[in-house]
């Protein structure tokens, strides 16, 4: 089923998505094919199977990582609702997302940096009896569409008093058709362009309380953070596999000369399989509390980024000049790969955080 969606719906669109076309068609078809079922036991009645979700995401990313990334944003948003205590979201929004009738996104890059002490939180709200009046702006949130009643994203904001003093932080789902909420496309990226990526602006936007995910937010974040990070490995695993496939293709004609290269596809495949074995094991115990487990999650994510980095170099070298042609698979995958390396948490952030958890001290 999933492979048919990839073959029939995604593959013909891969290049136009890379050129900047945003479509929900593939995400909708994936929902119909049941690609999101295993992340939401409350909707599907099945057991949670995070690894299956990661594998599905990898299979999609193998063809097109832009779509794999939107799928990540989507399933992470499902993960937020699934782990909340909000029955309204679970009954009214989550089933639509699982079936591919509504689309999810996440704006947790800034909150993650805020909780790590890297940046201030950019959204704040005044609480009213039945909702929150939100102000602020966020750069670069993906899988969104302006004024859409089908697009939702998870976000964290300060609750402030009238003088602007922070009282606490809460997390909520926000629909894109909120009054006072606007999206603006500000920059153009070299890859991942067709992912509906915008800067967002809140001007006295009123969010009803029925959208609340967590208040207080800290224990909830502890619960979801390992899943949030581990799900990203689906993109890495997929793009690596896609690059390995392309290396094999190049070797059909270039194997005699490619034998002089490092990071051969057979070796990278063995590394990827080892990494997937670890990811499967971690996915099976995703609610394990404590720093030791989270450090291992970060290490799995870092390992994904490291193998991606070497594969990105190798796929270009295996392809040679042919890979340098516009729309060549090698250079598209290479651009996609750098997203895994640079996006939050990037290799440098992961190293910093692992050091903190490993030795209990900040970097010297």
């Amino acid at each position, binding site marked *: 089923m999933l492979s048919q969606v990839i073959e029939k719906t995604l593959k013909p669109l891969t290049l136009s998505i890379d050129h900047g076309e945003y479509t929900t068609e593939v995400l909708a078809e994936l929902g119909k094919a049941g690609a999101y079922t295993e992340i939401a036991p409350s909707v599907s009645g099945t057991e949670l199977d995070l690894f299956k979700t990661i594998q599905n995401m990898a299979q999609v990313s193998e063809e097109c990582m832009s779509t794999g990334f939107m799928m990540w944003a989507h399933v992470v948003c499902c993960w937020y609702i699934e782990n909340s205590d909000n029955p309204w979201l679970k009954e009214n929004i989550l089933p639509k997302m699982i079936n591919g009738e509504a689309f999810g996104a996440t704006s947790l890059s800034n909150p993650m940096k805020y909780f790590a002490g890297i940046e201030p939180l950019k959204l704040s709200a005044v609480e009213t009896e039945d909702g929150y009046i939100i102000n602020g702006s966020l750069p670069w949130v993906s899988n969104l569409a302006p004024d859409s009643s089908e697009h939702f994203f998870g976000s964290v904001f300060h609750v402030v008093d009238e003088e602007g003093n922070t009282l606490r932080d809460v997390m909520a789902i926000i629909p894109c058709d909120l009054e006072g909420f606007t999206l603006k496309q500000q920059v153009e990226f070299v890859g991942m362009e067709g992912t509906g990526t915008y800067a967002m602006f809140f001007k006295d936007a009123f969010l009803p309380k029925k959208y609340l995910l967590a208040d207080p937010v800290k224990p909830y974040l502890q619960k979801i953070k390992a899943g949030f990070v581990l799900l990203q490995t689906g993109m890495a695993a997929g793009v690596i596999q896609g690059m390995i496939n392309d290396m094999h293709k190049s070797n059909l004609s270039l194997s005699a000369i490619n034998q002089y290269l490092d990071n051969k596809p057979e*070796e990278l495949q*063995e*590394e990827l399989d*080892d*990494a997937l074995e*670890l990811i499967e094991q971690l996915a099976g115990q995703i609610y*394990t*509390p*404590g720093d030791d487990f989270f450090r291992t999650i970060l*290490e*799995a994510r*870092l*390992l994904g980024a*490291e*193998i991606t980095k*070497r594969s990105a170099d190798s796929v270009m070298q295996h392809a040679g000049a042919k890979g340098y042609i516009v729309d060549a698979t090698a250079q598209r995958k290479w651009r996609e790969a750098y997203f895994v390396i640079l996006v939050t948490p990037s290799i440098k952030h992961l*190293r910093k955080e*692992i*050091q903190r958890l*490993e*030795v*209990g*001290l900040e970097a*010297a």
Partner: protein
Amino acid sequence: MSQQEYRKYICKVCGLIYDEEEGDPDSGLAPGTRFDDIPDDWYCPLCLVSKADFIPLEEMAHATPDDGTQPSHKVSNHADVMIIGSGYAGWQVAEAVRKELPDAEITLITADDGIVYPKPSLSMALRQERSAEDLKEYSAAQKSTELNIGVKTLTRVMAVSEKYKKVLTTRGNFYYDKLIIATGAKALKPQIAGSVAHEMVTLNDLPSYRKFRKTIEEVDHITIIGGGLIGTEMAEDLVAAGKSITLMVREEQLMPGMLPEAIAKDLADKLISKGVDIRFGQTVNEMNGASSAYELNLDTGEQITTGLVLSAIGIAPNVGLAKKLNLEVNRGIKINQYCQTSNPDVYAIGDCAESEAGVQAFLEPIRRQANTIAAHLKGNMDVTFDAVSPLIKTKTSTLSIMLSLPLGANDQDGWESETDIGENHKLVYRDQEDHLKGFALSGELVNQANNLYKQITDAA
């Protein structure tokens, strides 16, 4: 004649401090005995190295995290000898191999920061009021420069490929010709229920010691789970530091399987008189509440409130990488007399290794294992590793105890009491031909330990 000030000397191997003012009455050195006056055949009461391994305390090197030292030796993609792990075993074998093979490309990979420190001092540092920073001897960069080897810190080995002789890490791939696994052991925690059971702490490395020191400043009551060597020593040290202590001992005596009942009983009485609340035969079922005010539910139905829970129930060798390499693994990684694993290109050393005598989580075997590996790498088959039973001195100040267990012995029945005067016990363990195989001494009788131990080792 003016009285010269008393000086302190530290054992470079294990961190034991010899204080001239206090002497070492257990080995017959009266308080006030000058270090220079100690006989040359005296050895460190803790790790048995010779007097020559002691240096004045103030000469001990201290690494500063930002001393700016950069490793002078770049890490090569391919190592003749690769070492995984930077505990005592990892650094010791690095030193031994460098000595035997001056030109070999050696790489050491470690998941932590690679700081060189004496591990046994973790359980003494509290009493000596030494901070985690005081224990540091060298940074990884300093030590790697000294040994002229490549070192990768904060780099976890995620997988090993037997076929490609390659380790896959969070910082890239590295190839090896010979591999030495020195990954040590992890401290275990009991499986108990409750919402915060994962907040139980262990004390097995420098970062955990640093955190522990910080936490104990903020709490009054500490619960220790496990009545073995470490649990008992920690109970004594923490009560001396003014904390209230509950010591949970699942068995009916302290240090079961190691200490004869008579000595264990006297030691328990000493601890109880110091105020330690020992719960023999009891376990913790559940841990709830929050930091500084945990609620523990005991199997007796009782509930106690405590500020910190320290697990000291034992260790488990880290054998994950060995399994990836399909090495033969029992409790630890099986090694032969050359410290080779079931794959002749792979060696194991220290707490992760298991010789014929089992896993020996002591310092004593490590130096000899390191020399064996270094010699074997050079092609010398004459330096074999043969396990001996170590001489153990407990760091319990209320009652001096020294013992040596026969290899593999783990029962109470074989002990034969020779002397039993108050807290002064002497028990021996003899084989069928009446050869001395082990002994346990307490109180003033510990001064016989060195002679008895010599009898055992000379006979062997």
